[in-house]
């Protein structure tokens, strides 16, 4: 179709779909992408469900637990497609974990985790909020500092 951008398929890697439009750059910034990988970030792609969305394709990359948790905090509706030998072998939605360890920083500037060498930890509360295990303050998922 004229004017349409074409991004080649990836043989092995991960496609992160249904990222809310405008958050793709934030998501790519949170991932450790190997120098040898090819990556394509598509912005404002038309979507029946979301109106418009961002999509990230990364070759040669499997997401680890921390990366999945970070994506869940930023884009809880995102979906993952794991690609092997050119075929989708796994489809999944990201899920907010019950516990976050070393994933996000505490937004409370007086929290000890922002002053001492300590891994921030958050436990999930009712309503998808998170409580800092140190300063005990409760935050919305989107308030945590990535």
């Amino acid at each position, binding site marked *: 179709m004229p004017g349409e951008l074409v991004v080649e398929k990836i043989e092995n890697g991960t496609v992160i779909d249904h990222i809310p439009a405008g958050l793709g750059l934030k998501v790519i910034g949170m991932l450790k992408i190997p120098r040898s990988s090819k990556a394509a970030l598509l912005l404002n792609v038309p979507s029946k469900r979301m109106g418009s969305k961002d999509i990230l394709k990364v070759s040669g990359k499997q997401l680890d637990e921390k990366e999945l948790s970070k994506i869940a905090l930023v884009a809880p509706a995102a979906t993952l497609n794991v690609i092997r030998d050119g075929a989708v072998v796994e489809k999944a939605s990201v899920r907010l974990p019950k516990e976050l360890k070393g994933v996000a920083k505490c937004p409370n500037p007086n929290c000890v985790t922002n002053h001492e060498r300590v891994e921030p930890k958050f436990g999930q509360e009712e309503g998808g909020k998170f409580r*800092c*295990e140190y300063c005990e303050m409760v935050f919305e998922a989107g308030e945590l500092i990535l």
Partner: protein
Amino acid sequence: MLKGRDVVSIRDIAKSDIELLLRRAEEMEAGLVAGTPPDSLRGKIVSTVFFEPSTRTKMCFQAAVKRLGGQILNLTSVQASSMKKGESLSDTLRIIDGYSDMVIIRHALDGSARYAADICAHPVINAGDGGNQHPTQTLLDLYAIRRMKGRIDGLDVFLVGDLKHARTMKSLLYGLALFKARVTLVSPQGLEMNPKVVEEVRGKFKAEVAESGALDLKQADVAYVCRVQKERFADPYEAELAQKKFMVTTESLKGAKGDLVLLHPLPKVDEIAPEIDGTKHAKYFEQARLGVPMRMALMAEVLGV
């Protein structure tokens, strides 16, 4: 069971453990009155590590240790420690932990007591971590209320003052909700309790928590007053205005119940008029005294002696 545990937050302590502590504090108080407190801490060393100023909490803990026959190691401030030479907080705590059977800590950072508990092998008791928690103050407050009113459940307890900054109020609200008291939060505009904390106790305990911007104590069985923390204000004049508006005076006690109990975590500055000290309502000095048997009870339970 509190044996061997850290006491970092009132949220960590089960109601059954608090009830046990209330009973044990009564026994300790009876022992003190009779002049025969148990020597449960004989041979034990307790370190008091206070990085922030304190009169009551520190001296109360030290008195409680001595009454139980224990020994105290005391670190007074960063200035008086190797932290002045650049030693980290974690290293300082590891060293102190190696010398002690229990570590009692106060520090300006929120969550510092939990951090200390991660580091220390021996039990850590939080004596105030920034604006977060002060669980032993809450324990002594619950003990004082029950001693003075005979119960906690069903009482109308008014928390008055700077509810935004006072860690004692946050811990106490949780404790009162746990014991089914009806709580009214009275604070100047801008100094209200964190709404997330109020929401939590309402949801978790189905607690009755009302909020008011006016100092009207007619319905109160207990009024718990705290100072406006002027050191946390950018503009001292604003702090002054907030304090004046919520000062408890003989005028503001007109129409109050005859057996109203006035409590305060102390230090008090301008929030209670001096003439109130001599009235039957003023119970804050007795409240401070009751901290000794409660802290004796807590340390004995935690050390399992």
